[in-house]
C-alpha cells in the first residue's frame, strides 16, 4: 500500500513569511499584508473616522514596517510591532494636522459644566440598558473630538494600558485616565441623545 503523497502546503506560516520577506520575496510581503491589513486599516479608520486618510495611513504603516523588516528579531510578536507602528503613524498624522492628540487639560475642578451631573433626558426611557447597538456606538465614536477618540480607541477598543498610552502620545498617566473618562462621558451623552431622538423625547 503506497503512502499518500504529502501535499505541499501553499500557505506561509508567519515566521517563514517574515524570513522570506527579508530576502525580498514578493509573495511573502503580500502574505504578511493580507494577514494584517484589516486590523491595521480598522485601527486607522477608528482613529481618523475618514476612509481615504485611513487607507493612506495603513499604506504608510505597512511601508514603514516592510522597510524595517530586516531588523525584526522576533523578541515580540510581529503583530504587536506592526500595531504599535500603526498607532505611531496615525498619531504623527494627527499632530501634523495640528489636531489635539490628547488635551493638555488635567482633571477639571468644580464649577465647570462638565463636572455638573448631567440632566437625564426622560431617564428610564433613554437609559442605556441591556446592550448598545454596535453601529450606533461606532457612529458615536466617530463623532468624538479627535483627542477623546484617540484615547478611547487606544484603551477601550485596542486594549492599551494607561502607562503605554502615556508613553505613546506623550502625556501623563493621570491625563490619560482623565481624558478617557471624559471620552466615555461624552459617548454616554451622544448615545442617550440618539436614543432620546429616536424616542421623540424633547430635550429638557
Amino acid at each position, binding site marked *: 500500500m503506497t503512502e499518500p503523497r504529502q501535499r505541499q502546503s501553499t500557505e506561509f506560516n508567519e515566521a517563514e513569511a517574515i524570513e522570506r520577506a527579508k*530576502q*525580498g*520575496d*514578493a*509573495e511573502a*510581503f*503580500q502574505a504578511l*499584508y493580507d494577514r494584517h*491589513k*484589516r*486590523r491595521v*486599516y*480598522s485601527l486607522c*479608520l*477608528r482613529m481618523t473616522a475618514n476612509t*481615504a*486618510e*485611513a*487607507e*493612506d495611513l*495603513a*499604506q504608510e504603516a*505597512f*511601508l514603514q514596517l*516592510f*522597510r524595517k523588516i530586516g531588523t525584526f528579531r522576533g523578541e515580540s510578536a510581529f503583530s504587536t510591532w506592526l500595531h504599535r507602528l500603526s498607532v505611531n503613524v496615525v498619531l504623527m498624522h494627527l499632530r501634523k494636522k495640528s489636531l489635539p492628540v490628547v488635551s493638555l487639560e488635567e*482633571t477639571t475642578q*468644580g464649577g465647570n459644566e462638565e*463636572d*455638573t*451631573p*448631567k440632566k*437625564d433626558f426622560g*431617564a428610564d426611557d433613554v*437609559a*442605556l440598558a441591556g*446592550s*448598545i447597538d*454596535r*453601529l450606533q*456606538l*461606532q457612529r458615536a*465614536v466617530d463623532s468624538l473630538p479627535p483627542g477623546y477618540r484617540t484615547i*478611547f480607541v487606544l484603551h*477601550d*477598543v485596542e*486594549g492599551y494600558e494607561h502607562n503605554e498610552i502615556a508613553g505613546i502620545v506623550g502625556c501623563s498617566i493621570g491625563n490619560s*485616565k*482623565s481624558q*478617557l*473618562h471624559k471620552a*466615555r*462621558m461624552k*459617548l*454616554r451623552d451622544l*448615545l*442617550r441623545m440618539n436614543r432620546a431622538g429616536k424616542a421623540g423625547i424633547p430635550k429638557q
Partner: protein
Amino acid sequence: MTCVELQQSLAEIEDGSSAEQQHHLRSCSSCTALVEELALIISSAPELIEADDPSPRVWNSIEIALRQEGLIRSQRAKRPVISSFGARWGWARWMVPAAAVLLIMAGTYVNRRSSSRQMVNNIAPLSTPDVAAAGLNDDELLEAVSDQTPVAQAQYQDNLRRVNEYIQDAKMSVEANPGDEEARRSLLEAYQEKAMLFDMAMDRSLP
C-alpha cells in the same frame, strides 16, 4: 462624597468599587445608572465593527514602492498587468490597446537594441513623445487622480517619478548592454510597472 466627586473619582476607579463610591451609590440612583452605563460602553467597545479590507490600490502602491526601493527582489507572482481593466471596461476601454501599444513599442525598442551592435548608435531611444503617443501620458494620470486627497496625489506623483526613473535606468542598461537578457527584462518590467500605475489610477477614479 457628592455626585460631582463621584463622577470625578470614576476617572481613577471606573467601576465604582471603592468604599467611598459604594457609600454614595447606595443612595444615589442617578450615579448608579451612570456607573452602569459607563460599564456598558466599556464592555461594548472591543466589539466595535471591524472595517472591511482597504481598497486594492493600497497594496498596489505598497508593492510599487517596495519594488522601486529594491526591497522586492524576486519575480512577481504571475498576474496580468491589465487584469483589472477586464472587470471594468466602461470609459477606460481605450487604456487597454494603449497599454498594449506601449508594451509592444517597448519590446520593439528592446529588440532593436539587441539585434545589431552597429545599429545601436543609429536608433533613437524611445522618447517621451513616443510614450505619449502610446496613450499613457503622465499628465493624464495626474489629472485622473486630481480629485483624490493631497496625500494620495503626492503618492501618485512620487510613484510616477520613481517609475520614470526606473524606466530611464533600465533603458540605459539596455543601451550599454544590448545583448543582456536581464537588462531587457528589466526594461519590460519597468514599462509594466508604469502600466500598472495607470491601472491603479484609473481603477481608483472609477465610481
